[in-house]
Structure formats: structure tokens, C-alpha cells
């Protein structure tokens, strides 16, 4: 698929060579986004956009739309559709465990419903998702939207695909943040710090900030949970 590749202005002023710019630059960017289907997949799985976005915004370029649809379908069928059926054993066990844990053993109805869901895997949920027009109400947190759906066995495969793609960072700003933080610890007086210490410090800093590692000790937690009443000014 070639995005914007055909945009060659016919009535451009000859002095500014912008046909050249368009050909060498712009279409190249789009051909690069084209090489990476993640951009189009993320749009197609956004409940406020879906494939409808392409049909509307790229209406003048049917070949791009075809290209986008093709690469999305390819990914869906190749890697995601039927993913949970392939892992069905795990899944049934999982669901049974979930049911038992909550104190609700599976009833006959539950089991029937589970079987029905397995039949439903023959329905192309990507097709189903794209059938409905984009949601009118704005989904502000698209990742939580799909996370919610990933609990539903109907949507599980599509939600897996959506989450795999929508969690891709759009910018590589995070390494820059790491460098800003490292600059602070490598101050003038600490320039000779060993490489192992630098790595340990910055990793620990990053893990703590992210909340990935937390103060897990009971007494530290208890201290943090202390009632705020105790922080009042001393009445004396």
C-alpha cells in the first residue's frame, strides 16, 4: 500500500521545487508508516475511530484504505483470531478457578454459556467490531476500554490484539527521562562512580518511580496507613 505516494501537485509554482519535497520527503514518511502496520491497527481498534476513520478521512485514496484494511486483517488472522481457543485448556481452568474462588461453582447454565462462547469464536469479532459505527461518546482511556473487554471471552482475542498495539509508546521520550535523572546522580562530585553503581541506581530509581517495586514490608505499610488525625498539630 502506498500512502500519499500519489500526491503530486500538478499546479505547483515551479520555483519552489515542492514536487521534489513531496516525493522525497512526505511520501517517504507515509511509506515508512506503511511499513509499520501498527499505526493503522491502532486507529482501527480505537472505538472512536475504527476503520470508519480511513473510509472517511482517506475517502479520496481508496488504495490506501484497501492497504490498511489488508494489513489489519492479515495481523488479525495470522496472530490473534482464535488465540484463546488455541489456549482453551488454560482458559477453561482459569474460568473455573475464578468461579470457584468467588464461591460460585459453575452451574449447568454457566457451562452451557462457556460452550456457547467457544462456538462464538467462529464469529469474526474483528468484523463484528467494525460493523458497528464508531462510538459516539468519547473514550478517553482506550487502554482501559479494551482492558475491560479482555475479561469477556467474546472479545478476548480482539482485546489482546488491541492491547498489544495500543500500549506501544508513540514517542521514545522515556530514555530521555532516564538521562535527565542520570544527569542528577552523576553530579560533578560523583563523576567517577562505577558503571555498575550507575546502572543499579538508575534502574532502582526508575522502578520505584513507576511503582513497580513498592515498600512491601508490613511495618512500612502500616506506618504509611496511619490515620491522618495523628498528623495534627500537637494540642499542647
Amino acid at each position, binding site marked *: 500500500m502506498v500512502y500519499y505516494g500519489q500526491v503530486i501537485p500538478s499546479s505547483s509554482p515551479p520555483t519552489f521545487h515542492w514536487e521534489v519535497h513531496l516525493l522525497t520527503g512526505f511520501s517517504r514518511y507515509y511509506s515508512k508508516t506503511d511499513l509499520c502496520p501498527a499505526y493503522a491497527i*491502532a486507529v482501527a481498534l480505537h472505538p472512536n475511530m475504527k476503520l470508519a476513520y480511513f473510509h472517511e478521512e482517506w475517502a479520496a485514496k481508496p488504495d490506501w484504505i484497501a492497504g490498511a484494511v489488508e494489513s489489519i486483517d492479515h495481523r488479525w488472522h495470522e496472530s490473534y483470531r482464535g488465540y484463546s481457543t488455541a489456549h482453551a485448556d488454560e482458559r477453561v481452568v482459569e474460568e473455573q478457578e475464578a468461579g470457584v474462588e468467588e464461591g460460585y461453582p459453575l452451574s449447568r447454565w454457566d457451562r452451557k454459556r462457556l460452550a456457547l462462547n467457544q462456538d462464538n469464536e467462529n464469529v469474526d469479532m474483528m468484523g463484528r467490531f467494525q460493523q458497528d459505527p464508531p462510538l459516539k461518546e468519547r473514550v478517553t482511556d482506550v487502554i482501559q476500554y479494551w482492558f475491560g473487554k479482555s475479561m469477556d471471552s467474546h472479545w478476548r482475542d480482539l482485546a489482546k490484539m488491541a492491547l498489544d*498495539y495500543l500500549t506501544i509508546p508513540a514517542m521514545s521520550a522515556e530514555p530521555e527521562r*532516564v538521562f535527565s535523572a*542520570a544527569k542528577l546522580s552523576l553530579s560533578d562530585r560523583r563523576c567517577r562512580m562505577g558503571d555498575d553503581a550507575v546502572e543499579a541506581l538508575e534502574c532502582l530509581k526508575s522502578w520505584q518511580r513507576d511503582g*513497580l517495586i513498592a515498600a512491601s514490608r508490613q511495618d512500612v505499610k502500616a*506506618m504509611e496507613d496511619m490515620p491522618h488525625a495523628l498528623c495534627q498539630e*500537637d494540642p499542647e
Partner: protein
Amino acid sequence: MATTKNAIAHLRSKHHVGPNGIITAGTSTYQQTIEKGFGQTGPRIVFNIDVFKDLLLQWIVQMNVSFHVCEDTTFRSLCSYLAACQPDYSGVYRALPQSGHAIKCYVLTWYDAMRQEVMLQLHATHTKIHFSFDMWSGPNRRAYQAIVAHWMAHDGQLHAVLLSLHRFKGSHSGVNQAEHLWCTITDYGIEPFVGMFNVDNASNNDTALATLAQHLQAGGFPSFDPVSARLRCFGHVLNLAVKAIIWGADIEAFEVDMNAAQDELAELLEWRRKGPMGKLHNILTCILKTQQRRDEFTNVVRRLYPTETVHTVFVGNITRWSSDYESILRAFRLREAIEDYVRTAIRQNRNGERDIRNDNGLVHDELLPEDWAFLLCVKDILAPFKEWTLRLQVRYSNGCVADILPAMDELLVHLEDLKVQFAEEPHLLTMINNGWSIMDK
């Protein structure tokens, strides 16, 4: 903040230490508050050396405290005071490491333990694990490679953490970068979860991913496609587009010219060639060059805008996103002060009151009304770029990939509209086209 408060609360509740010293148990109304808060059987926190060490390390790591803090007598006095006040705390002093080296060992041990914990969390990912990585020269003149992982955990929590900050020796070639990338991935055992890579536009990143693909293939993961797994940092693309609009399509060639410009005068002339944007750049650089000039400019601002809260201008730099745009915005906010400053400088120059050698250039850099009109257009051209940069950063801290195509489409429509609008303005038209052309880098 909360921790400090909690610590105070802890001192009060457990050790009955208030701001005025020890609170006598039983007679204090404060004691009653504690009992109300906790009941008689509230949690009792006993001093534990390991907890103390953990908290000490967390503080040292988070606040970039020198490992040698524990050798510092004032810090040790602080700790001995706590120990002296309460027999319970006597362990503090014993627990306090004697040397910076000991702290370093603690940090390394803690790191090894936490690495295992992070590994477990990575293995329990709900999604593929995506990566961003980049190279950096530290203030110690060493090169480092940072590798950051992005994923969603089973509880729906998004994570973005540093996996490795590796001292990089040798050439920064893609092949070398891939070696360490692969080491990190195998160290954490996350080969099966490798997802996408968001890196900047350097072409050695292509090589890095191609090499990584070979490693993955050899390791039994053949489905990794280095081309479709590579995303380009969108902030970087926006930044380059803005640079191209302002400074010309061939921004990199221009930077080379700048470096080649031997003396200051050549540099000034070089910037001036870029039209009103160049003039503005020269004026701002001139104002910011020395502390005296900055003060002088601030005085002008104070005189002209008594209620203004910002008193200085700044110059955009090559790498920071939207900094040129911010620089223009600020210039418009302080436009009269800039005009006043330049007029005064030129007048004084003519009368021989100033150091001619330094300020001579301003004569040619005075911004005429048509220059300001031009800058206003530039501001309008750039505004949506700034807006998208912000929008992408706000959504999730690293942006959402679903926003990229809509952003591209919107910005291109914006540039199209401007082309019609400025059809009669050859210079602006060139700028717009330059922005267009750079979208690929």
C-alpha cells in the same frame, strides 16, 4: 511529603516525641488522640534495622544522595540524636553503615534482589513488551545506552521502566547496539514477549533491529519482523518538521554550515540569511549573551510592562521540542521591550556609547513591522504542531500510537490550507513546503 508526615506521626504515636520534646505518656491530650485513632490495640511498629536500611537506601537512590552521606558527621549526629532520645532507636546508630563503600554494596545487593522481582513482573505481562532505547553521553564523558520496557500488567496497570543503563564502549553502530539489546532481553528472559520498538530516526537503529531479529531467530523466535516492528518517535518527527519550517528543509546541512562558520560574524550572517526568524534569533542571542545585557533587558521589560511576570526571552534550541515556537510566543509577549531594546542599542551605537564590536550586528537585525507580521504567520503555522506534541504527551506519558495517523492527517490538512492562504507569499510557502518535506525523517 506524606512520608515525612507519617514519620512525624510515627514519632508521636510510637515514641511520644513532639516538637517540644517528649510528650509525657498518659497526661497528654495527644495520647488520647492516639488512642482514639488506633484504639488500644492499634498497630505497634517496632524499630527494625532492615526497614531502616531499606528506607535509607530508598532516600539515597531517589534523592541522588552521595553514598558518603553516612560518613558525614552532621548526618551521623542527626541519627545519634534519634538514638539518644529513644532507647528503641539505639539500633539506628549501629545500623548506619560506616562508609560510602558499604552503601554502594547495599545498593548493588538491593538492585540484584529487585531485578528478580522485576523479572517476575515482566514474565506476568498481559501484553507484548515494547521497547524504546537511545544513546547518551553522560557528564562523565562516558557513553550509555538506555533500554526502557513498556507493557501492561494483568491488573491493567501500564508500566514504563528502565531495564538497563549500560556503559557503552566502542562504536555506536547498530550491530553493537543490538548486542546489548539482546543481552538485556535474554537476561530478563523476555524473548517470547518482544513487541515493538519506538526509537528515533537514526539509521543505525534499522541495523540494530535487523541484527536483533537475527538473534531472535537463532533463539527460536522467527516471527519478529524488524521492519514492521519499528516505530519512529513521533515527537521527533514533529520537531524536525518544525525545524524544517523555520530553518529550511535541509536542517542538518544548515547545522553543518553553522559549525563551519569560523567567527561570530559569519555565524550572525548565517542566521540572518534565514529572514525574520534569523533576525529574531540574533536579537535574542545578543540579549542573552551577557548578564549585564540580560539585566538591561529585564529593566526595559519592568518599565514597559509593570504587571508582567516574565522578564526574559529565550532562544529555541535544536533538540528541544517546540522550543522555537515557545521562543516566538515569548517574543510576542515582550515585543515592545525587544523593539525598545534594539532601538536603544542602535541609537547608542551610532552615538558611540556602546561597545561597537559586540552590538554592531543589531543594526541589521532590527525587526520591521513586516517582519513581525511574518513572525505572526510563522506562529500560526507552528501552533498545531505544538498542540499535537502536548496532546501526545498528556494522554499517556509516552503518547498513544492511535493518535499518530490522525495527527499526521490533521497537520497535512493544516499545511494544505496554509498553502492556499499564503499562495502569494513565496517565503512562507517555501517554509510550509519544507515542513512537509521533513515529515519523513
